[in-house]
């Protein structure tokens, strides 16, 4: 049976991982390439690189580290951050990305998802959304969560999937950083309206949060998190073992290789 995917997300600025990370057994690592290799060796099913660089110079550094990562890590790589045009798709795909995630770029130009899907295939286009409850309604936020677009979230997701988004990363701003579990209410609503894979993001604080996620919502395909993996609060191999103990299909890699 197909496995539920566990995906670490790396925020990259000027070619380095933001904040750095601190594994118990690895010490400080700021090189995205090294970190990607570490995660791949320890059972990550996929990696997301998020470019938070603003400058053209930083953007160049980002494509350099992406190229270097794709040369050494052989699991799927998704790239997001600063994707506004199909030329941006082209730039990161040429460096070895397998999927490209769009967020604000799709809000600015709603035809971007459809154009990219026709050029590179649906499987290549990942819609990423930042969602927050405003007066009891799920709204889409843009610009890294700073701006309320006023758009109703579920309708926006349905529309983008209709245009060709092959996967959806749902980040709940309400649960993000709180570490009390994923936003099950929001995720259930998304699973009800889309048939493409759904990736849950925001709120994981411990292994049990992933178990609850996959047990409660079989329609969720993957769980994404950043700091809890980077700071060693959750170790992916231990998480996968616990998933299996709970009857959740998980891919366990043999580290002896």
């Amino acid at each position, binding site marked *: 049976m*197909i*496995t539920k*995917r566990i995906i670490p997300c790396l925020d990259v600025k000027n070619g380095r991982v933001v904040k750095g990370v601190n594994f118990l057994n690895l010490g400080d690592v700021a090189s995205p390439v090294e970190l990607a290799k570490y995660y791949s060796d320890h059972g990550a099913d996929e990696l997301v690189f998020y470019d938070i660089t603003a400058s053209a110079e930083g953007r160049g550094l980002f494509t350099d580290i992406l190229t270097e990562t794709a040369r050494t890590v052989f699991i799927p790589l998704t790239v997001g951050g600063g994707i506004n045009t199909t030329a941006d798709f082209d730039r990161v795909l040429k460096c070895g990305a397998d999927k490209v995630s769009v967020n604000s770029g799709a809000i600015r130009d709603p035809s971007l998802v459809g154009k990219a899907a026709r050029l590179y295939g649906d499987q290549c286009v990942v819609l990423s959304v930042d969602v927050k409850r405003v007066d009891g309604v799920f709204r889409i936020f843009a610009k890294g969560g700073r701006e309320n677009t006023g758009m109703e979230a579920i309708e926006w997701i349905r529309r983008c999937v209709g245009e060709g988004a092959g996967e959806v990363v749902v980040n709940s701003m309400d649960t993000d950083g709180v570490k009390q579990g994923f936003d099950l209410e929001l995720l259930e609503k998304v699973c009800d309206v889309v048939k493409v894979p759904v990736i849950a993001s925001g709120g994981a604080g411990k292994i049990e949060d992933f178990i609850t996620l996959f047990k409660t919502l079989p329609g969720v395909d993957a769980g994404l998190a950043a700091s809890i993996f980077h700071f060693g609060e959750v170790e992916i191999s231990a998480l996968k073992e616990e998933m299996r103990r709970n009857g959740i299909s998980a891919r366990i890699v043999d580290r002896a290789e």
Partner: protein
Amino acid sequence: MVAIIDYGVGNLFSLRSSFAAIGVEAAVTADPETIHKADRVILPGVGAFEDAARKLRETGLDRVVRAEAADGKPLMGICLGMQMLFERSYEYGVHEGLGLLKGEIRPIAERIGEGLKIPQMGWNALKIRRQSPILKYTQEGEYVYFVHSYSAVNCDESLLATVEYGADLTACVGLGNVFGCQFHPEKSGSVGLKILKAFCEAGGETEGAV
């Protein structure tokens, strides 16, 4: 040297990097002479069957691939490239494939039943049905990475491994010197690299040329 055929479909960066990682020289090429000189040939591909089949025909590379396969040179199709090895596909109409292997490509939707997402996207375990030179380093139940909405059927003659996704879907095929993987070995971690390595060691001598 491995020739990775470049006919304008898909991203060949990872595939080339994979061969570098296992220490095998690989060239991304559309040049018939380079392909002829290569020890082995990879036919990659993502996207729609009709579009890819047309591009292969328009570049004349369909004849090149057929000729190399007939010469007994080891050939591996990957993902859509694997589907192209078969007689025909029923993806949006009926389209002719290379016909190097018996069988056809049908939508997985016809077989997997309700409740499963299409495409199958993610890691799934291989069930080995028949031993083959390209699976000599592969263990039963090892995980590989899939992204596909169509799969090969009526291909018992070449079937090497299947994957359980609502039904047993064709994952890996091989007959003589012609091999195919529905999954992406270049995205399947060390398990995938070992399959590429085994392909690079396969002589194509086992059952004679197709």
